[in-house]
């Protein structure tokens, strides 16, 4: 018998074993009747609240689906034991399936992936099942129209009641972001090219000035040589010999007694010094010519290296590059700037010579300008020191010039920012970009204004720069 019925019997004073009195019986019936009514009421209330909450659930679900649709984000679960994939409606949209189409299998999904992403994706999924490791990956998935869509997929392994892993996670359409990224990349590459061109023209101006000066001296040397030769007393000696020739048989008489012959000896004595001077002049000018031409050759060969457009990875010797950059940076001695180098112990590395030269050229030119602007320092110096730390090569270019305010230490690398009066603000910007391209980085240190500055280029040793970006560069 139901506990409640036993209780009702007790309350009305009835027992199971004997029939009740009429009065008791009526009381009992009334109680039972009330109980049924209460139960009805309760059931009604429960049914009503169930209806309400299921409506709410549906509404909530709808909202969730709507939110997923807006976010272009789908939710999925993959059980590899049962080989079942379940996912939210939005996943269908994401891969361009109708919502009534059947769910693809894992293998079918793999086939829809871009072949470059397939292997890595499968590997990550396997690892996740085996080791319970979560992962996030950007993949390209072919939609119904055969176009690839970019998805960002996050997977999170969870254990079922049997202690086996199943994967759940989200996928999000990031095609638009990817497109924007591509655009940014393109713009950046264009910027880099124009920055490089501007830097080149700066170098060209510099070279033009240098070569112009040297050519000037070369020109004058040649003209001086021509002048000496034109006026040379050597010609006079030839004349004298021609004058003496007819008198060969009686030369002593000619020199001693002839009216003209008498003048020959005094003439020779007089021009001796002039011929010596002419000779010295020719010697000086020709050696200067040689020196100047050598200098022009050096400048041109340094320029040639810079002028090559394509990126070539090769074994480069740091000291060569730095010497080249110094040569291209202009005059130091005349400005009383001392350059100290400590770079000899560094092994050669695989990198792009052209690009490295560009960075050093920029850093050394900056140091030079900073020292020129700094009138207070008596012993102006630039230190170039290379060290190796944990497989990274660090080259530090320091000067004791005008220094950098703390606020500007990172700003100086941004495009268009310059602390120089005539600066255009892309030298350091492009150098930092190139450093990145070479797999390294560039940063600045300074204790503050008038306390000098250091620029530190860090490059990976034993690791070749990412070829892809360099190839990409080539196509522009």
């Amino acid at each position: 018998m139901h506990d409640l019925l036993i209780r009702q019997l007790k309350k009305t004073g009835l027992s199971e074993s004997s029939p009740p009195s009429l009065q008791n019986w009526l009381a009992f019936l009334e109680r039972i009747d009330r109980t049924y009514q209460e139960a009805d009421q309760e059931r009604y209330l429960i049914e009503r609240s169930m209806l309400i909450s299921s409506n709410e659930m549906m509404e909530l679900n709808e909202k969730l689906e709507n939110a997923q649709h807006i976010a272009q984000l789908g939710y999925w679960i993959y059980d590899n034991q049962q080989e079942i994939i379940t996912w939210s409606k939005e996943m269908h949209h994401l891969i361009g399936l109708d919502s009534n189409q059947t769910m693809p299998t894992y293998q079918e999904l793999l086939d829809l992936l871009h072949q470059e992403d397939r292997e890595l994706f499968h590997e990550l999924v396997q690892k996740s099942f085996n080791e319970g490791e979560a992962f996030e990956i950007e993949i390209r998935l072919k939609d119904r129209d055969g176009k690839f869509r970019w998805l960002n997929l996050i997977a999170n392994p969870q254990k079922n009641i049997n202690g086996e892993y199943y994967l759940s996670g989200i996928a999000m359409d990031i095609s638009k972001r990817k497109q924007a990224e591509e655009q940014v990349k393109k713009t950046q590459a264009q910027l880099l090219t124009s920055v490089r061109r501007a830097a080149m023209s700066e170098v060209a101006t510099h070279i033009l000035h240098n070569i112009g000066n040297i050519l000037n001296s070369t020109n004058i040397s040649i003209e001086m040589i021509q002048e000496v030769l034109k006026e040379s007393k050597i010609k006079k000696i030839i004349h004298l010999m021609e004058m003496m020739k007819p008198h060969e048989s009686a030369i002593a008489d000619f020199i001693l007694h002839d009216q003209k012959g008498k003048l020959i000896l005094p003439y020779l004595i007089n021009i001796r010094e002039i011929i010596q001077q002419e000779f010295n002049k020719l010697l000086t000018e020709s050696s200067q010519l040689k020196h100047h031409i050598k200098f022009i050759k050096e400048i041109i060969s340094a320029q040639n290296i810079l002028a090559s457009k394509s990126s070539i990875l090769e074994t480069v010797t740091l000291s060569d590059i730095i010497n080249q950059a110094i040569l291209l940076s202009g005059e130091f001695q005349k400005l009383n700037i001392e350059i100290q180098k400590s770079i000899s112990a560094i092994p050669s590395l695989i990198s792009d010579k052209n690009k490295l030269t560009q960075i050093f050229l920029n850093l050394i030119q900056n140091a030079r300008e900073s020292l020129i602007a700094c009138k207070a320092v008596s012993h102006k110096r630039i230190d170039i020191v290379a060290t190796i730390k944990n497989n990274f090569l660090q080259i530090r270019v320091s000067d004791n010039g005008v220094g950098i305010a703390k606020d500007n230490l990172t700003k100086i690398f941004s495009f268009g920012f310059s602390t120089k009066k005539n600066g255009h603000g892309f030298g350091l910007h492009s150098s930092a970009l190139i450093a990145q391209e070479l797999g390294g980085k560039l940063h600045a240190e300074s204790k503050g204004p008038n306390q000098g500055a250091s620029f530190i280029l860090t490059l990976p040793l034993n690791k070749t720069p990412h070829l892809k970006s360099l190839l990409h560069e080539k196509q522009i």
Partner: protein
Amino acid sequence: MKNKYDFRILIIDDNPEIQQDFLKILTPIKLNAEITNLDEKLFGESKHNKPQLPLLQIDLASQGPEGLMLVKKAQKEHKPYAVAFVDIRMPPSWDGIQTIKEIFKVDKNIQIVICTAYSDYTWEETITELKQNNLLILKKPFDKVEVKQLTYFLTSKWQAANPPKK
């Protein structure tokens, strides 16, 4: 009393080799009177077949302020420069334009030639900047003849404007 030189010339250029170039061009070869005499007797060459060029006293400066100082000093001594050759690019101090501006402030008569290896300023920009159009531009690399011509032309121009005082 006649000066040992006819004109004073000032070269302002930061490059010592360019300074030497000017010196080489403007320093005439000394003629030895004895040899000239002998040349005439031995070879019948005439004494007068070469023009006698004015004698120049040449001073060198490698920076703008240094050049200005020399100009001021020359003014004070009443032995002003007739011509100055000024390089356009002379780091770290003043550039040529600035230098010329400063020089014109103390000496209005001086004849100035601007030397450029390439042009930072165009001629139009230069004369606008200096509010002055009697400037000559000498482009590097220059020839001996150009420098000589400029020097002799400008010294006579200077002399015409500044007749020697008695």
